[in-house]
């Protein structure tokens, strides 16, 4: 006797029989949710949030790649859902043909899709946390560990996963509803076998696509600059729309790949005709998949390129600094003097040479400021007499410290910048300098730049004529006076000494100096005198705590952070750990997602075209021929997005480095070289996955 007596029992049995198809959908959904949940958990974790400066480039990069990953995951799950329903439609069509009404089919179908989507999404969301925990702790164990890297979660990140979960379930229900609404039952039955060829564009499609990518990259990158330069406007969010041609271009390139391929067919028009036709007849799906994979690989490269670019520039800078130790302090602080330092050095068997010391003062300096309009978007420029604080040295002091000859004319000032003249703090628009204690002002004008990397930091440094310096600094209290010190180690330096000295140095400051380099005392006085609250006194200001002197935030932002070459070199990874590991994590997430999409796409090629491979076998195709067809199909899925994604990002990075200052610096060339090596390694990994995918598919198709 039959065990099935009603619709519910039949649906359950059919679902059990369709386990394989459901498993693919479950897997795709699970992966998408796990990736979204892991990414958002890490991105919004306090660990990362306190390290990534709000509104900074690195934070923007992190959010931008998150959006790309999100788009990738949406397309990925929609695709998996499409595959699931293509298979399901045959079953639904038969039941409709045999008289099952929509009302009879709807509860079971909705129950199934809600269950599959819900369970996989919830499991994926939950798995995201252990996933990120395991990867993060693997980083800590194998790569680098620091006090900054203690991982904590802000569970508000679940809101993003929840939204995605609702989207997945909602879209699944919508698709189910669309199928049930169809009146042409034959269409539902045949759905599984219906191909989705794309409209065949001319061979101009690919080259025009590349042109659009290039145009979009230039427009997208140039638009914010144009906002500033032409419209005196801070770039609004919508300005990113100028990147749109990149996506259109990518679509066209992928379309060209699917429809025409990139090899010339003049010599042998029949070569690869079968694999190309297979791709063409599932064109819509294939193009979407290639596009998603390209975006993910590009996102991954964007993240991973950050590491060499950042590291090369920092390490070269450390290596090229003229002194092993360089620091400054406020005159009212009880900082170890030369004798203290030499005593400490002896304990580590070190002696010192080239000891240089000079005094400086902190003054108010005028300059051009960007003043927001009421709309909060546009601004106008205005000269402000007491714009910011500046460290000011006399000619003699500068000569002593740097060994450079300098002659500053009375009534003028020279501004410090780095060798490449890329320092953002250099001031060249001051008309007067102000003593912040006596409020005495000295009329001045810009007389040119001086170049010394160690002085070209966040706070502007100026050099005055000796007499001007003496006149303007008269009456300053010790909290406006300071000292620059530099020296070299006679022989080989010692990290333990540098570390001990660093901690001794930090501990000698009192709370009045526990502030970031962006905290401007001149601005504070100006704002307070105008009856306003200075933003640096609000919660928006980064908090500096001596207890966290090894943290990223402290070493990056403390106003008196010293430059100890060996300390910086050795602790680079540790102090930048969270940022570097976050980008490494983003890279891993993007690559894993991209490879899963590629693998799934190749799997569906094998499943959908099984009968073609069987027919080819019957027509006498040799195993070598079949092998070539499989490799050709999978090759296109892996190769084109990888090449386009990595090359596009490499070129974009090159463009960014060039556009920063209109030239390529030696460190930037070196960074690009390292990025190229990284790209080659990524290529190697993708190739290895491609090989194993081909092997798996050949096994499924029974190709020896």
């Amino acid at each position: 006797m039959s065990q099935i007596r009603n619709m519910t029992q039949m649906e359950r049995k059919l679902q059990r029989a369709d386990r394989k198809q459901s498993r693919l959908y479950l897997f795709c959904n699970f992966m998408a949710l796990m990736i979204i949940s892991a990414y958002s958990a890490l991105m919004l974790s306090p660990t990362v949030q306190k390290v990534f400066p709000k509104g900074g480039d690195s934070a923007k990069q992190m959010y931008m790649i998150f959006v790309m990953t999100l788009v990738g995951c949406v397309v990925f799950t929609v695709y998996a859902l499409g595959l699931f329903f293509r298979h399901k439609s045959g079953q639904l069509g038969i039941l409709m043909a045999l008289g099952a009404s929509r009302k009879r089919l709807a509860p079971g179908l909705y129950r199934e899709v809600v269950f599959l989507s819900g369970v996989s999404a919830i499991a994926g969301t939950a798995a995201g946390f252990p996933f990120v925990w395991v990867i993060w702790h693997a980083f800590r164990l194998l790569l680098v560990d620091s006090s900054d890297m203690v991982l904590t979660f802000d569970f508000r990140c679940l809101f993003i996963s929840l939204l995605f979960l609702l989207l997945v379930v909602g879209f699944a229900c919508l698709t189910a509803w669309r199928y049930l609404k169809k009146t042409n039952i034959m269409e539902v039955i045949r759905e599984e076998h219906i191909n989705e060829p794309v409209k065949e564009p001319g061979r101009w499609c690919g080259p025009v696509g590349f042109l659009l990518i290039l145009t979009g990259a230039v427009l997208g990158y140039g638009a914010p600059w144009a906002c500033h330069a032409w419209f005196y406007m801070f770039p609004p969010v919508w300005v990113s729309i100028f990147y749109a041609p990149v996506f259109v271009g990518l679509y066209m390139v992928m379309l060209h790949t699917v429809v025409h391929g990139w090899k010339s067919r003049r010599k042998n028009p029949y070569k690869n005709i079968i694999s190309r036709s297979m791709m063409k007849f599932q064109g819509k799906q294939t193009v979407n998949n290639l596009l998603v994979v390209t975006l993910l690989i590009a996102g991954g490269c964007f993240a991973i390129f950050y590491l060499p670019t950042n590291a090369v520039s920092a390490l070269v800078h450390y290596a090229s600094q003229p002194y092993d130790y360089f620091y400054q302090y406020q005159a009212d602080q009880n900082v170890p003097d030369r004798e203290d330092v030499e005593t400490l050095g002896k304990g580590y068997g070190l002696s010192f040479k080239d000891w240089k010391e000079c005094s400086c003062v902190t003054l108010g300096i005028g300059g051009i400021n960007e003043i927001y309009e009421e709309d909060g978007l546009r601004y106008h420029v205005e000269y402000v007499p007491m714009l910011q604080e500046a460290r000011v040295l006399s000619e003699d002091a500068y000569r002593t410290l740097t060994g450079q000859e300098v002659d500053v004319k009375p009534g003028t000032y020279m501004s410090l910048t780095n060798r490449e003249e890329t320092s953002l703090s250099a001031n060249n628009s001051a008309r007067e300098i102000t003593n912040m204690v006596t409020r005495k002002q000295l009329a001045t004008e810009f007389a040119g730049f001086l170049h010394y990397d160690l002085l070209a930091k966040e706070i502007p440094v100026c050099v005055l004529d000796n007499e001007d310096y003496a006149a303007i600094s008269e009456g300053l209290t010790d909290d406006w006076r300071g000292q620059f010190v530099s020296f070299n180690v006679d022989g080989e330096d010692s990290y333990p000494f540098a570390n001990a000295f660093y901690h001794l140095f930090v501990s000698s400051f009192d709370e009045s100096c526990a502030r970031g380099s962006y905290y401007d005392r001149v601005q504070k006085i100006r704002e307070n005198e105008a009856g306003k609250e200075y933003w640096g006194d609000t919660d928006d200001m980064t908090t500096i705590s001596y207890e966290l002197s090894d943290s990223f935030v402290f070493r990056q932002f403390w106003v008196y952070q010293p430059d100890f070459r060996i300390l910086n070199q050795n602790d680079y990874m540790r102090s930048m750990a969270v940022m570097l590991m976050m980008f490494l994590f983003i890279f891993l997430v993007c690559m894993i997602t991209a490879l899963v999409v590629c693998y799934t796409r190749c799997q569906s090629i094998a499943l959908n075209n099984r009968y073609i491979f069987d027919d080819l076998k019957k027509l006498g195709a040799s195993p070598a021929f079949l092998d070539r067809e499989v490799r050709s199909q999978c090759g296109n899925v892996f190769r084109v997005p990888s090449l386009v994604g990595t090359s596009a990002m490499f070129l974009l990075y090159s463009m960014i480095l060039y556009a920063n200052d209109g030239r390529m610096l030696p460190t930037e060339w070196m960074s690009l070289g390292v990025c190229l090596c990284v790209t080659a390694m990524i290529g190697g990994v993708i190739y290895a996955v491609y090989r194993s995918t081909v092997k798996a598919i050949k096994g499924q198709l029974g190709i020896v």
Partner: protein
Amino acid sequence: MLYVKELYKSYEAGKNRYEVLKGIDFHVAQGEFVAVMGPSGSGKTTLLNCISCYIPFDKGNIRLGGMELAGMNEEELARVRNTKIGFVFQDFMLLDGLTIRENVLVPRIVQEEVPAEAEKLADQLASMFGIGHILNKYPAEISGGEKQRAAVARSLINNPLIILADEPTGNLDSKSSRAVIETFINAKQKMHATIFMVTHDSFAASFCDRVILLKDGTIYRQLEKAQERGAFQDQLLDEIKKMGQED
């Protein structure tokens, strides 16, 4: 039993519109076994799909057992498909995840809780069509002929007014084709079933009481079987040949 009057159906492909059925008129009487033949593109399957309510038609009337199909809502059409029509498809359309017995019972399952007498009927149909021994097997485990006989049994489980068969022998070898046709004859003789079959196969059509020849969306000729099967097949082949020569 089945009246088709002035039936029109067209398809749109891009900007082009193709008239497939151009005013078809015919009727099928209770207990009659009727075949529709014609060259590819003549509209045979479209005609069957319109009668089955699988695809909407442009204009005309289809009356089945006194019911007018045009104007029925989805729920009513589903009820007609379930209780008044039995279907046999060229590619069997069995559900791979169910046993043959369960497949035969699907039209009852989608209707209500399966009563014991329906299971009994399934067993009777299975033994009548020679598939009793495979009732607990799955479609993947049986031959094409057996699958089609199971499909015929499924089409009869609700004791419909008419069985609509679309190329039921199209995917079968000659031995299996014969077995399937015999199944139809059995159903006609023992259950007084009315059968309307679309086919390319003159051998299969020669078992029918009447054959409608379609050409370019219109009825070219209707042939009544007034002689023994072999001669009727020859007559069919002659008419098909003539139809081709008239182009």
